[in-house]
């Protein structure tokens, strides 16, 4: 007979939680930094500190479940990646204020933390028992991350050694392209195929379309990387085509959200709609306002989607881990997050993004408020998880 479930394959909640906590820290640090600086250094507090941290946590959680492979020592692996990235990023950022040569230490730590985690994850993905468009997107995404990391390390060490040559100018946009549209973009694409039908009760996107999107976007990233070495015009054409590829992705995904079986109205759908909607502005902004282009891409698209995902994933994981220990009396996912406060956080985030594109220092207070609200909103499911963790499992009492 059925014996209950006390064991499960998912890694302990603490492993992804560590990354999510790191993301919150860097979001707040980034918010304070904006008061006096809106350079590329501060931008990396958000791209590495917030986006990458969340994505590493989510990957670690999704790999066993979606792909069927797992980390042997999930919490140790998380620690081994987390601390080098944490201190590496702090040094990377402060090097620009204190002493450029500190960049060398910062970059080395980032190479260890990101490179280690990236390589292990990529290796696992190639050993996956089955492939799906999501798995292919994740592999490409990690491959692009490793390339972006190497280029970033080259840029950082050139600055650290005060040897900025011709290659710097050429490789700078390629680094940003690989990191933004290769790593972050393709990961979101792959993950969305999985989480949108799951959380929003929509049909899956057709397999053909999913495959086409992943291969086309991946190919266009590669093309945009190579093209600058051939001809500037070729580079422009390849990149614009890539932007329209993402626009097509946004269109298909928005339509998929429209097809949800129950017209549930809830803030996290709005996070997705705003994130995907941001992609429509990119082709125009690329020509008229490069700074707004980067802000709308990173904060409007990636950050909105990542926030929306956190509001679903954290309560779900809390529920999952508690229930797998045999409890059935815990609050529901809906009760774990206040919809009203999530909505307020969303508006704060949108306002902060708009101000960032126009007047970055003015965005500082709202960015801080947005991350404070995010932390406050997500504290409840985490507290519920730890409350239940302290109680003996009903299975063990039997």
């Amino acid at each position, binding site marked *: 007979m*059925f014996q209950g479930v006390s064991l499960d*394959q998912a890694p302990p909640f603490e492993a992804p939680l560590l990354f999510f906590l790191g993301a919150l820290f860097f979001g707040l640090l980034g918010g304070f930094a904006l008061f006096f600086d809106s350079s590329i250094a501060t931008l990396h507090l958000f791209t590495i500190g917030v986006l990458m941290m969340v994505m590493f946590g989510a990957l670690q959680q999704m790999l066993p*479940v979606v792909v069927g492979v797992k980390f042997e020592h999930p919490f140790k692996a998380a620690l081994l990646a987390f601390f080098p990235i944490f201190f590496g990023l702090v040094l990377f950022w402060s090097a620009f204020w204190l002493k450029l040569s500190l960049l060398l230490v910062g970059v080395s730590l980032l190479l260890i933390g990101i490179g280690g985690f990236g390589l292990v994850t990529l290796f696992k993905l190639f050993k996956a028992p089955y492939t799906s468009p999501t798995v292919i997107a994740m592999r490409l995404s990690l491959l692009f991350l490793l390339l972006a990391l190497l280029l970033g390390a080259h840029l950082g060490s050139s600055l650290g050694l005060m040897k900025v040559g011709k290659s710097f100018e050429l490789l700078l946009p390629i680094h940003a392209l690989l990191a933004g549209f290769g790593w972050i973009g393709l990961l979101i694409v792959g993950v969305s195929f999985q989480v949108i039908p799951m959380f929003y009760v929509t049909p899956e996107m057709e397999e053909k379309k999913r495959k086409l999107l992943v291969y086309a976007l991946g190919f266009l990233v590669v093309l945009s990387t190579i093209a600058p070495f051939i001809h500037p015009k070729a580079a422009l054409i390849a990149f614009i085509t890539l932007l329209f590829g993402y626009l097509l992705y946004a269109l298909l995904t928005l339509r998929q959200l429209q097809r949800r*079986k129950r017209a549930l109205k809830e803030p996290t759908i709005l996070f997705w709609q705003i994130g995907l909607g941001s992609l429509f502005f990119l082709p125009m902004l690329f020509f008229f306002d490069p700074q707004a282009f980067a802000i709308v891409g990173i904060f409007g698209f990636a950050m909105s989607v990542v926030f929306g995902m956190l509001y679903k994933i954290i309560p779900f994981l809390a529920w*999952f881990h508690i229930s797998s220990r045999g409890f059935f009396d815990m609050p529901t996912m809906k009760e774990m997050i206040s919809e009203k406060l999530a909505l307020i956080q969303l508006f704060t985030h949108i306002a902060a993004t708009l101000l960032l594109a126009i007047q970055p220092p003015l965005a500082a207070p709202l960015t801080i408020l947005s991350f404070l609200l995010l932390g406050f909103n997500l504290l409840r499911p985490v507290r519920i998880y730890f409350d239940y963790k302290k109680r003996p499992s009903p299975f063990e009492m039997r």
Partner: protein
Amino acid sequence: MREIVVDTREFEPPAPMQMVLSELQSMLPNQSFVHQIHRMEPTMLFNRLKPMGIEFIVRKDGEEYHIYYFYPEDRAKIQELIDVSRR
């Protein structure tokens, strides 16, 4: 064999997982199996089954997934039932 049908297509998580887990409690070897109809592969749930000693077969039909859960000793019978019903 008695078929216990659970249609989870229109439920938000975690309801689909709860519904199937609850039906699995009443499933008996040699007597019954659970047939879930869902909008995607419930991979989170699959991960929970391994330690429970329950097996499953997935069949895709258009936009729907049909997932059959059973005890290992019933595999041959279930396979036959699925093949017949799909002909």
